[in-house]
């Protein structure tokens, strides 16, 4: 489903964020990526969504060479990925409902079908009662759940989350992780970057450890 082969990323200015990274992600897998901040977790996830392009090596997503995608093809790649960003990127000038509607606005769904999907996504993350609220009125955990609802409303086959539990208390963080696990259980591949090793160990799934842009080792079930 996703495969990295010998991928390096060097930013202008000389800092090498990733160094000859190779790994694969199976269909329907739940994969944690851990490492201290600055280890390259975010860069790795951004390469998958073609937000960054690799300096060398190839990133394949569903058989497509993402690093070589044409500008005009990138939107269609992203519609098949659910992205939860580290800074969430919610829009505070509109309601919870309209935030989740955003990805459907440009993917040609009939209005009734779109409304149904938005409510279904909000229901899955437990925010259906808050659909008229403004995101600013939500707690940190609720905002994170809203970001997840927006990521899954297009029913992507891959869900990518960058530090979704950062700045949350243990209970909220646990709740967020449960949501991702639930999506994984119905067949969605989930890639989740976190520096919180305590959370990861609870699940006993495959873990990718990064340090200074290099793959340290893999542990877990795979």
């Amino acid at each position: 489903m996703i495969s990295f082969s010998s991928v390096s990323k060097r930013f202008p200015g000389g800092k090498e964020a990733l160094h000859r990274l190779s790994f694969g992600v199976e269909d329907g897998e739940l994969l944690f990526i851990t490492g201290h901040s600055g280890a390259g977790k975010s860069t790795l996830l951004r390469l998958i969504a073609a937000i960054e392009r690799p300096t060398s090596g190839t990133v394949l997503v569903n058989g497509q060479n993402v690093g070589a995608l044409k500008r005009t093809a990138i939107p269609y790649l992203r519609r098949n990925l659910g992205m939860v960003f580290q800074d969430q990127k919610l829009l505070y000038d509109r309601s919870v409902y309209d935030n989740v509607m955003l990805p459907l606005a440009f993917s040609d769904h009939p209005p009734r079908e779109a409304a149904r999907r938005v409510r279904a996504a909000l229901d899955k993350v437990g925010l259906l009662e808050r659909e008229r609220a403004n995101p600013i009125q939500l707690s940190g955990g609720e905002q994170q759940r809203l970001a997840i609802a927006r990521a899954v409303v297009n029913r992507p086959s891959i869900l990518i989350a960058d530090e979704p539990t950062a700045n949350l208390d243990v209970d909220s963080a646990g709740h967020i992780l449960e949501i991702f696990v639930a999506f994984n259980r119905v067949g969605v591949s989930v890639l989740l970057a976190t520096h919180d090793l305590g959370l990861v160990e609870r699940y006993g799934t495959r873990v990718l450890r990064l340090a200074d842009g290099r793959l340290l080792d893999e542990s877990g079930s795979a």
Partner: protein
Amino acid sequence: MRAWLRQHRLALAAAVRKWLAQRAAALLNALALGVALALPAGGYALLEGLHGLSTRSAIDPQLSVFMRTDVGPEAAQRLAARLRSDPRVHRVRLITRADALDSLRGTSGLADVVAALGSNPLPDTLVVSVAASGDGMLDQLAAELGKAPGVAQAQVDALWARRLAALERVGRLALLLVAGILAVGLVAIAFNTIRLQILTLREEIEVSKLIGATDAFIQRPFLYLGLLQGLSGAVIALVLVWAGLALLNTEIVGLARSYGSSFRLGYLSAGEGIALAVVAGGLGWFGAYMSVSKYLREIEPK
């Protein structure tokens, strides 16, 4: 197809919302664009009016042929007869020097002057109406007649009309230059206002792009916004031009009447108004396109 139409309808609705959201700024923008458009549009209307004037007086081009005073009246009669058989000539009127003196004597206040003259200083004159128009032919005929026996001078009477036409051509060129410069200005105004719009909506654009919006989808409402701005400018320009011409006409009608003419400046036709709107809307659209494309390139990751 239905999805495509819906996308465009939504983009247009979003553009109208954005436009109405800042009434004051949108109105000032429309005024700026309107003034910029009114200059060439008004100039065009004025030139069209002058054009009517210069062609109207050239409809019946005339030549005045003055005979030398030392030849007899037969010379004028011979020339008149020759001209009447010339296919280029429509009508010839002979005014003998005696007739001319009589009519001068009839003019009030000049009788004494005429009496004071010992002899008649006026020449025999032929007033020649030319059949078909065409400046070249008129000049050629004048040159021919100037060399005819007994002729002192042949003069084209429509000279002032031709000068007006030449002036009009200069005006037209100047107008074209002004229109060109203002078109560039219009694109610049649209570019800048759309850029400001983009900056206030930066987050929405960035997020939309990250989660799979195509560039076309992001551009669409801004292109409609540019189009709306151009159109609103055109409407204001048409109102300004109409008001300006109406004001000028209140004076011109009186002036023309004193010359026994019913001349008045014409307003822009419906077709010309539509053409102005299309051009202004197109320029607004183009400015918006440049602006939003530039921004999308800027935020594109390297």
